[in-house]
């Protein structure tokens, strides 16, 4: 006959009677006090403070309404900034009107519409320094012997695509 559920439960309940000897819990309490005193002496005040701080943090719960309030604040801020009523970064952004004015180019550099065109009688000496860029930058000086070079607006005749199937 197999041990049924009720008999098993009764057997397990007998384990309630497995108790430590009389007076055990009083002695254990004294031991608990002794350990607490020892621990207090051993640990520094900072450690004790930190442990209490951590335990308080574990117990801290963010109230439910705080999430709603935070979302509301985000929506209001996004609306104000997005609509342009308030733009906090206008002073730091360089706009087109604040950009340094570039003076007219050297003689020979003609501006036709929005395109630059080089003409034959270019005065290269004007390229040395420009009032718009006071820093010294390396410049190209024309050779007396070299012919002027032009960039052709097109592919060279020898060009072949590297991938041909």
């Amino acid at each position, binding site marked *: 006959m197999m*041990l049924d559920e009720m008999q*098993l439960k*009764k057997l397990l309940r*007998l384990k309630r009677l*497995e108790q430590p000897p009389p007076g055990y819990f009083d002695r254990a*309490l004294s*031991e608990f006090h002794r350990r*607490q005193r020892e621990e207090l002496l051993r640990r520094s005040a900072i450690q004790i403070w930190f442990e209490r701080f951590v335990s308080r*943090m574990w117990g801290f719960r963010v109230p439910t309404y705080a999430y709603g309030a935070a979302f509301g604040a985000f929506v209001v801020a996004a609306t104000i900034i997005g609509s342009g009523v308030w733009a906090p970064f206008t002073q730091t952004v360089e706009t087109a009107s604040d950009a340094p004015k570039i003076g007219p180019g050297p003689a020979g550099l003609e501006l036709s519409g929005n395109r630059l065109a080089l003409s034959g009688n270019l005065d290269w000496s004007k390229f040395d320094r420009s009032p718009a860029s006071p820093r010294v930058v390396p410049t190209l000086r024309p050779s007396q012997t070299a012919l002027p070079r032009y960039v052709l607006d097109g592919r060279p005749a020898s060009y072949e695509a590297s991938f041909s199937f």
Partner: protein
Amino acid sequence: MDDQNLPDDETLVRRTQNGDTRAFDLLWQKYSPRIYSLIYNMTANHDDASDLLLEVFAKAYRSINGFRGKSSFYTWIHAIAVNMTINFVKKRGRRFQMSLDDLDANVQNDKEFIDLTSTNTPVREVDLAELQHRLNEAMMKLSVEHRAVVTMFDIQGMPHAEIAKILGIPEATVRSRLFYAHRQLQNYLEEFRKK
């Protein structure tokens, strides 16, 4: 002071939080036997149970300022005890010695014991001390999570809902763990009876 005359837990906790160490002693008086029983039945060792009991109460004392009363103190301290014991048993692994061999002498007068041994049951056929030893061995074959559920439900008589709160699991899980643990215990004791 008798347990019935003790102030309620909420008052004792508040007093402890305000620095009254005597109030924490009263909480010890109220809960240490139950916590000891819980740890003892999960570890199967008196010495380990004694050490863990002190550690559980030390941890509870250190953390009591963070206790906000969302659950009862009873649930809170049981949760600390179960978690610490589970961690301890998992660390200890197989390296342990059973010391569950000192059944109270009053068991002979216990009504349930008389019921069990007076009728024609399998229990009657075996020596009580040996049966107890086998039961403890069977308990130790369960996983520590299953043992915790059996201890709280069958030995300490807690309801499923309370166990679920302590372990932080659904009630259905508590029931399924109990079902599985009972089946395991029955099988193990059946094997013993056949020998």
